[in-house]
């Protein structure tokens, strides 16, 4: 179990992490989600004693990490895809880590096989691709067969097969009663892997919930309508109780001069029937589910540390992003 208690860290007068409290429980994968610079890595490094917090503390199985008798069997950590000396072979890197904790040499070969880097174990780590480096970092984390896993964006650079493997690895470790803390800036990835969610932005916890609760709360759906009779449509729904119509910007695939709307609070069937009865011409009628990614982005939007300028001609105003399900 990883407990973060009122953790704060100030770097050069700026709060990188501000009073963060959460628990990554045994038997569960805890997704730690936030935009770049939100404080995920700082929190994880503080939990591992690499960064001294300005306030609060982090406990692993009830103890500070730095006082552990066998650190590698308590926590396996992936903090960086490039974690080995560029001039050292993968095998020597893993062997040196294993020796410090009296882990048998046979275990080194085992994690090399598990992570699929047996063919390159004698090669210098500097010649590794990002994905191979990530596998090597994961191999190092698994060396001590740890009771807790701390994984900082472990899928960066991995191929699809590797991504799936990391997902299964997290699930497997949790199923064995171990605690897995998995950071990511991708909601979709965490939704597939995690049980619990901690969302962080600008150093503060924005939401602590479970993945299921988050999905339930944010999986609202709207009906997208493209019509040349915009006014007619708005008049029709203004009298219909419990529905809401919101004009949105047409996309490049929509026909010229078309009006596009989102209709909330009505079923597809009701909407279709109303259109038929009112003789409104419809070019498109489809249900759209709001994606978790979008909900997450809305939640963290005000807390983004590094925002890029929008590309010309792009409008990202609509809360409904994923298109195309239940198209009729």
């Amino acid at each position, binding site marked *: 179990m990883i407990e973060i208690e009122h953790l704060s860290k100030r770097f050069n007068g700026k709060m990188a992490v501000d009073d963060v409290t959460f628990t990554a429980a045994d038997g569960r994968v805890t997704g730690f989600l936030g935009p770049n610079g939100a404080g995920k890595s700082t929190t994880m490094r503080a939990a*591992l004693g690499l*960064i001294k917090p300005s306030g609060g503390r982090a406990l692993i199985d009830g103890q500070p990490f730095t006082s552990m008798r066998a650190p*590698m069997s308590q926590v396996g950590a992936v903090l960086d895809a490039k974690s080995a000396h560029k001039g050292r072979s993968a095998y020597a*890197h893993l062997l040196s880590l294993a020796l*410090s904790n009296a*882990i*048998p040499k046979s*275990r080194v070969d085992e994690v090399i*096989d598990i992570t699929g880097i047996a063919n390159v174990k004698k090669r210098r780590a500097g010649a590794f691709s990002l994905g191979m480096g990530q596998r090597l970092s994961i191999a190092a984390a698994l060396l001590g067969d740890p009771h807790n896993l701390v994984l900082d964006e472990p899928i960066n650079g991995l191929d699809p097969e590797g991504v799936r493997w990391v997902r299964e690895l997290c699930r497997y470790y949790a199923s064995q009663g171990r605690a897995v803390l998995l950071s990511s800036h991708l909601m979709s990835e965490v939704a597939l892997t995690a049980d619990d969610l901690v969302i962080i932005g600008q150093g503060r916890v924005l939401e602590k919930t479970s993945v299921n609760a988050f999905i339930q709360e944010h999986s609202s759906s709207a009906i997208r309508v493209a019509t040349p009779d915009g006014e007619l449509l708005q008049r029709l729904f203004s009298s219909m109780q419990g529905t809401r119509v919101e004009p949105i910007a047409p996309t490049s695939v929509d026909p010229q001069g078309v009006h596009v709307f989102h209709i909330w609070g009505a079923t597809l069937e009701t909407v279709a029937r109303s259109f038929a009865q009112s003789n409104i011409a419809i070019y498109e009628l489809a249900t759209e589910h709001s994606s978790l990614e979008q909900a997450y982005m809305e939640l963290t939007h005000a807390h983004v540390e590094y925002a890029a300028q929008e590309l010309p001609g792009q409008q990202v105003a609509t809360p409904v992003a994923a298109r195309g399900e239940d198209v009729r």
Partner: protein
Amino acid sequence: MSSTNSAQTQRSQGHGYNTGRRMSSRRIHLSFPGSVHAEIVKVLSLRSSYILLVINTVLIPLGTALAAWSIKTLNSMGEDGKTLSRPRALDAADLWMSVGAFVSTAVLAVGILAILSLTSEFANSSIQASLTANPRRAMFMGAKTVAVSAFTAASTLIGMLLAWGTAHMVLAGTTITPLSDAHRFAPWVVIIGAPIASVLIAIMAIGIGGICRSTVGAVFAFIGVMMIVPQLLSVAALFGNGFRWLNVVTAVLPNSLMDGFLGADLNTGMLASTTSATSSSFDPNWWQSALLLALWSLVVYLIGTVLVKRRDIA
């Protein structure tokens, strides 16, 4: 071949995920000897380590060969510059000074090795993996120091034994007058003192690495303390009587102390002028020099360790 394959298949069929008794918490534990072993593997797994250790080992006898050859040449020349028909007898003190003549130059290689052993971890982010495996940073620094010291001592000792042989080879055929009673332990001071002095410099260099953390900064600081500062100070001391005190400062810099230590108080002979270029009112004997050198190592190492312990690893 097929048995290897089947063993691999067996391992890859999920058994690596379940580790059993050999990975029990009773067996797995962090320890200082384990950490030293880890650091030994780190030193041995980098090509740069071999190159720097070999440079140290080779430079020592090479310097001795040059020094011994110049003594031999000077000894066979008359005051008018002509070659004597029978070369003068050579003081054994000069032989021993030639054996240790180049240790303080060769030590730059092991100093750089010591610096790299720490700063390269910061440069490659491997420090994160190292300190996650061993979060006790003082133990980590200590283990690194023991491992680097062991290789430094071995490399310098081999260099010294080769240098001893080289001196005898170059000076073969020359009559050598034995050491005076006062200097009878000098060979031991030179042969055993050289590895000790190299180790002390390596420990100091690890401290500099801990203070600077950047390889370039640490190497520059090390070369600065060992070579640039002493030279600047000796030049500055020439400006006049008001600057004479700078000679005392020069005399307590690591390079002068190392020469003083390995000079083994033999500086009465022919090489005296080359090894103690700066004469000052403060002139420690060999063991005083050794103690002062150890003090340098200790202080710089402690500052480096405290900084490594305190600073964040981002």
